[in-house]
């Protein structure tokens, strides 16, 4: 899959932002006034910024409101609803915490649930696609949720929770790569089933339909970046998990915390880049490519 910057920025930032909102809604940290204001500005900056970035890949962003109509069948529509509900409810909760010094905990819990639901619905947009075996796995939602929670705990300054959550996310990431590498072969789809000619012999793409490229090849067949995938996995793992965990074990100071957050963010972004760049769409088979 083409690793479009808009979707990488979107899933990385909004995952972290909604992760932070999840903890803020549960009163972790238990803050009011100016401190709460700063936390909410960061959370909204990330989540809304991510959502804005996601609209850049639309052909017609001005019609994006129509995406709220099909929540019965479409995960993308459900994601839109969850995001709007989470941001609205948490907005009310934030008004209470920042300006009135009030903790409307019921509102906070509802906001937390919808924040997590937003991350889950985002992951289901990818998980539902049978055409991309690497995404069509139960580990995909686990990956998105564990990343959101780990990053959220880190941003919320919940050091005690952040370490185990980062370790869980790291484990799921490793499992995801391990299982993902086998997913395409396991799906049973190959050029033989794609053409229906597999029972007759070995099928080879002889001649493409055209000499140039097309939308399908640009969107679904991205082979350029896979060359350095192994190195990027190590870089992502070190940045997203190793560096933050080490820093969390050191005596706390704000500078270390900032480094931990930035390192985690960079690591998650690299992981997301790989999530797209390494995903192979079955349509590539028709072109003799993966």
């Amino acid at each position: 899959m083409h690793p479009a910057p808009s979707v990488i920025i979107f899933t990385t930032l909004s995952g972290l932002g909604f992760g932070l909102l999840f903890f803020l809604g549960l009163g972790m940290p238990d803050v009011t006034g100016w401190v709460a204001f700063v936390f909410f500005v960061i959370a909204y900056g990330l989540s809304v910024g991510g959502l804005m970035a996601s609209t850049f890949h639309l052909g017609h962003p001005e019609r994006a409101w129509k995406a709220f109509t099909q929540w019965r069948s479409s995960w993308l529509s459900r994601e839109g609803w969850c995001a709007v509900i989470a941001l609205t409810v948490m907005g009310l909760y934030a008004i209470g915490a920042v300006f009135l010094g009030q903790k409307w905990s019921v509102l906070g819990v509802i906001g937390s649930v919808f924040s997590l639901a937003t991350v889950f619905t985002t992951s289901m947009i990818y998980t539902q696609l049978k055409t991309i075996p690497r995404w069509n796995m139960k580990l995909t939602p686990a990956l998105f949720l564990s990343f959101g929670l780990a990053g959220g705990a880190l941003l919320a300054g919940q050091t005690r929770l952040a370490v185990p959550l980062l370790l869980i996310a790291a484990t799921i990431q490793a499992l995801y790569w391990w299982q993902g590498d086998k997913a395409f072969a396991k799906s049973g789809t190959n050029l033989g089933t794609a053409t229906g000619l597999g029972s007759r012999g070995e099928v080879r793409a002889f001649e493409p339909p055209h000499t140039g490229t097309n939308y399908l090849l640009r969107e679904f067949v991205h082979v350029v970046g896979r060359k350095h995938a192994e190195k990027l996995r190590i870089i992502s793992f070190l940045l997203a998990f190793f560096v933050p965990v080490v820093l969390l074990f050191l005596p706390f100071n704000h500078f270390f915390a900032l480094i931990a957050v930035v390192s985690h963010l960079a690591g998650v972004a690299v992981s997301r880049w790989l999530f797209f760049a390494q995903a192979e769409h079955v349509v590539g088979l028709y072109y003799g490519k993966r």
Partner: protein
Amino acid sequence: MTQLPQSTERKMGLVIDLDTCVGCHACVISCKGWNTENYGAPLSDQDAYGSNPSGTFLNRVHSYEVQPDQGPAQLIHFPKSCLHCEDAPCVTVCPTGASYKRVEDGIVLVNESDCIGCGLCAWSCPYGAREMDMAEGVMKKCTLCVDRIYNENLPEVDRVPSCVRTCPAGARHFGDLGDPESDVSKLVAEREGMDLMPEMGTKPVNKYLPPRPKDQVEDQIDILAPLLAPVAEEPKGFIGWLDKALEKL
């Protein structure tokens, strides 16, 4: 609505004969010609006369080589367009309701004024049947020439999809695959028509007829062949001497 209908009254679709297709791409051109100036936004090209041309097509012809365990390889031309699946994933993923499957004839269409161009339907299609138009920013796909097949302004012979009307080899057939008595259904039954990627669970309406087995070349082509074997195996006379002399050099 992007919920799929429980069932459709008819299942209009194409039957493509891989035995007959000669790979001339006439269906590709006639499809583009008809559909760029009729239903919906035109099918744009980018850099059409430059060094890196590309464009939107609703139908493309691939060619595959099949190498059996024994015998010579076979070349098979393979036209591919929307299969108008019964369980079309492109419809259910659509967030806006732009993508839909018609109850009356099962045709999968895009309402372009509702399409936000998110591309998710193309992601969900295993067949590469949907292409985003780069000029218009909306998703384009085969309409089964919905503006031809019911069009009473056209002579009756033309009320079939443009690709079917054009095919010079008669490799494309159009009809109701939901009716077991229709010509296309009989053809599919007789020739053991198949689904593409059945494991994807999309239940395609369009069927592909597999190529018929080719004549096998026997070891002995002709019963007279032994009699045609060269009579003089060893050269004689001057040529024989020359042969021996050159061997010794």
